[in-house]
């Protein structure tokens, strides 16, 4: 946990000194990634276990922002059509096009897909 907070702090410092338009945590993620690649910690290192624990509950951390819906119910009601329409249409288009584009651009070294059809659905 110390490392995660440390890299977050480092990322914030970089972002705030340079005025980069990204959150400090994303810069911290890249910093930690490079560090992990260089240091190659043992699989049972504290950092790795703490990270896995935190990521297992990633959805929990988005709950407060989602609950913000109670403060915008008025706008949601009066502009439901453009909001829901814009959300769903842009989601469908971006997800499908990206899936196709990446699949198309992936170098074909091994034949065939690595997951069977519907492997992701449960």
């Amino acid at each position, binding site marked *: 946990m110390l490392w995660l907070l440390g890299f977050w702090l480092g990322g914030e410092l970089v972002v705030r000194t340079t005025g980069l338009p990204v959150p400090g945590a994303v810069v911290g993620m890249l910093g930690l990634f490079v560090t992990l690649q260089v240091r190659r910690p043992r699989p049972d290192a504290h950092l790795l276990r703490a990270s896995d624990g935190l990521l297992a509950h990633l959805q929990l*951390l*988005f*709950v*407060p922002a989602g609950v913000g819906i109670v403060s915008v119910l008025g706008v949601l009601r009066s502009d439901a*059509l453009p909001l829901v329409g*814009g*959300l769903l249409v842009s989601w469908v288009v971006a997800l499908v096009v*990206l899936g*196709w584009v*990446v699949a198309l651009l992936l170098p074909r070294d091994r034949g065939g897909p690595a997951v069977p059809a519907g492997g992701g659905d449960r």
Partner: protein
Amino acid sequence: MTWQPGEALEWVRTSPLLGVLLTLGAYRVGLWLHARSGRHPVTQPVLVAVVLVSTVLLATGTAYADYARGGDLVAFALAPATVALAVPLHRQAHHLRRLLVPLLVAIPLGAVLSIGVGYGVVVALGGDETLARTMAPKAATTPVSIALSADVGGIVALTAVLTIGVGIVSAVLGPWLLTLARVRHPHARGVAMGAVSHGIGTSRSLADDPEEGAFAGLAMGLTALATAVLLPVFLHVVALIGS
């Protein structure tokens, strides 16, 4: 010693503790329901928890700002969790080289599609400029989308809700839609999920397949960057065309 339950209640009412407990409790119910339903996609714990907490707030007439004293403490851990996404990526790093070109094309394209189609559809369906600007940054992860929304004159609280909204829609339906579109490769699925639906989509990908999840996390980080860079450009172009 004196008997002063009123004082105790007042402390509970104004302390962040209640918001934290409510959030954790609702999330716990979400986890339980998810397990009980055989991990049915609709029972994403975040969706269940948001519905439960919102219902409690509305039923008790609690203002969001009062809840947020505790909610903000929970959301604080979002930043270290974002840093932690380096770990699954590290484990999949040997795949990175072959994804370099696809990512360089896909991430900016995805950001432009999320921004442009979101903006365009809102306007086409009768939304005003403010609403369109509120929608535009929603594919970026919450801290970024909120900051961008404030920068471009959107409604910040609504952008946060739309961001969580697209995440939930994607966590529930994304893998199904990708399978329907015959996108099978875990790298392609992961990049699409992370780029379109940030951390919430990433958490679904991580749960489905660690390899897919690692690339979702990477795509999420890169999309935050691409959205921050491309949103001002997009709005500038729209203004040029409009004038």
